[in-house]
């Protein structure tokens, strides 16, 4: 019963149904990737699981209990959230910002804080940015610093949960793979991780579980290798794209091209 679960979740905002009948588990030991076109409801699902939007139907469960049964602080000690965009306009120092991630943590000893902040900055390759001010960073650097902040929050938590909305956007190829490899490694250590992505190949190289979403509904969910096939991708992205599987370094990679118009 450990971990985060959505059961037949439905979210309606301003009379528009954004999610319908979504069931999904974020389980310890698994890197779970959400794939789907823009507007599929990936961010909405992540927000719902983060407790931002209460469900109109269905249930959200943390360790088998309704999400609301856990207070804000208790949730923050288990689950860290990376939103798709950040709104920080103040000139915080990078290390100062990462340290803010430790706000809810039980262990507030200075030594632990330093240790964890060092570790997450190392893991996200942001140690070299430590002395910089946030507004002077590039988009990709900001993304990695925010990821470091989120990791710092649950780095030493029991049964930690990560919800990351497009953690790789604005990252270069090297860092995209590095971040996914890092998350994969954390999953092996017992983290429960749910992320959204737009890159099929990152998903098929690193994900344990993949869920395909379209129009606020779940098309398929399961082990990456069994879920990703040509027919499902066609259904996911529509007739405008054609897909072709290629074996590369032991993983299936997907080539895509636009369907030629008549």
């Amino acid at each position, binding site marked *: 019963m450990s971990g985060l679960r959505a059961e037949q979740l439905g979210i309606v905002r301003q009379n528009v149904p954004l999610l319908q009948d979504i069931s999904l588990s974020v389980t310890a030991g698994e890197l779970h990737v959400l794939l789907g076109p823009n507007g599929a409801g990936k961010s909405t699902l992540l927000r719902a699981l*983060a*407790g*931002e939007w209460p469900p109109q139907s269905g249930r959200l469960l943390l360790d088998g209990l309704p999400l609301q049964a856990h207070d*804000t*602080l208790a*949730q*923050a*000690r288990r*689950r*860290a*959230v990376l*939103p798709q965009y*950040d*709104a*920080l*306009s*103040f*000139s*915080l*120092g990078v290390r*100062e*910002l990462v340290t*803010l*991630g430790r*706000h*809810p943590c039980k262990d507030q000893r200075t030594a632990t804080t330093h240790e964890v902040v060092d570790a997450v900055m190392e893991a996200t390759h942001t140690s070299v940015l430590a002395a910089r001010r946030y*507004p002077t960073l590039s988009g990709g650097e900001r993304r990695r610093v925010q990821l470091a902040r989120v990791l710092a*929050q649950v780095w030493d938590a029991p049964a930690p949960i990560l919800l990351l909305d497009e953690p790789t956007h604005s990252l270069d190829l090297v860092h995209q793979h590095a971040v996914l490899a890092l998350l994969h490694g954390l999953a092996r250590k017992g983290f429960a991780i749910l992320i959204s992505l737009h890159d099929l190949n990152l998903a098929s190289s690193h994900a344990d579980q993949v869920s395909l979403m379209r129009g606020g509904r779940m098309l398929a969910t399961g082990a990456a290798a069994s879920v990703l096939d040509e027919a499902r991708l066609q259904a996911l992205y529509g007739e405008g794209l054609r897909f072709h599987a290629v074996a590369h370094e032991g993983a299936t990679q997907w080539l895509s091209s636009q369907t030629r118009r008549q």
Partner: protein
Amino acid sequence: MRSTHILIAGFLLLLATSLLSLALGAALLSAQQVLAALGIGSMPIEHWVRAVVLDVRLPRTLLALAIGASLAQTGVVLQALFRNPLAEQSLLGISGGAALAAAGCLVLMPLLHAGTGLVLHIGLPLAATLGALLGTALVMRLSRKNGVTDIATLLLAGISINALAGAGIALLQTLASDAALRDLTIWFYGSLGRAGWPQLAIGLPLLLGIALWLPREARALDVLLLGEAEAEHLGIEIEPLKRRLLLLVALAAATAVALAGIIGFIGLIVPHLLRLMIGPGHRLLLPAAGLLGATLLILADTAARTVLAPLEIPVGVLTALLGVPLFLLLLRRADAP
């Protein structure tokens, strides 16, 4: 440590400025005379010196200290709350509400033959406080939907309420007698000239109490800079925090307006300057803003009552005259905020 040094420097600066303001005025006093009047040192002084320092200048300096510190600190809080370095007390409908209520008192009470001494003395600050709280409550109520305070709506509601108050004040001005009109002017541009021990007895504990409370929220304010959803994910109950902070800010600003009228730009300039100098972390920023805000308002008030003596310039005019160019300069700087 660096932050301790900054705070000690700020404290010494405040102390020096306070002594300066006690020494300067129609009668120029020496440092020894001021200290002796305060009971420090054994220099014999005449009775009038003691009276000037203790009954005239000290309450005024203390009021400037408390209001300056409070304006700067609540400015810091508002800017974190709005995540906008341009937020200020006047945005919340505080200034508008207080000013309208005060104008109402000044203009209408003489018409009702109630505008004499004591009634006006007590009625005016009371009305200003009520007006400020009412204006804030209205703005907060208008911006709350489904139990959530929307910051963008809050800004627009504040601007609207202030505009409405401005129209009401203009209407009252057309009805006002010449004497009332002059009082109104002093009120709208701020003056510490009404400072005395009775006003301080209420104002000082309230303002300093809030000033001493706010640093407890420093960590939460830091987290708030990341965004409201982010703060919630970091374990902060965001709605109670927002309501508590807004109430404290409104109460502090209303007290300040009631005691000294509207004094602008301290709440804008001081936080801005300090963020450029020491960064946006609130554990240092809040106490530093308190010290610098107090120092600046004491300086401004000392200048206001000495530069054109025996005429007194409204202190709000002075803070605006100094503050606006400085602010525009800051706006032009590429790396602001």
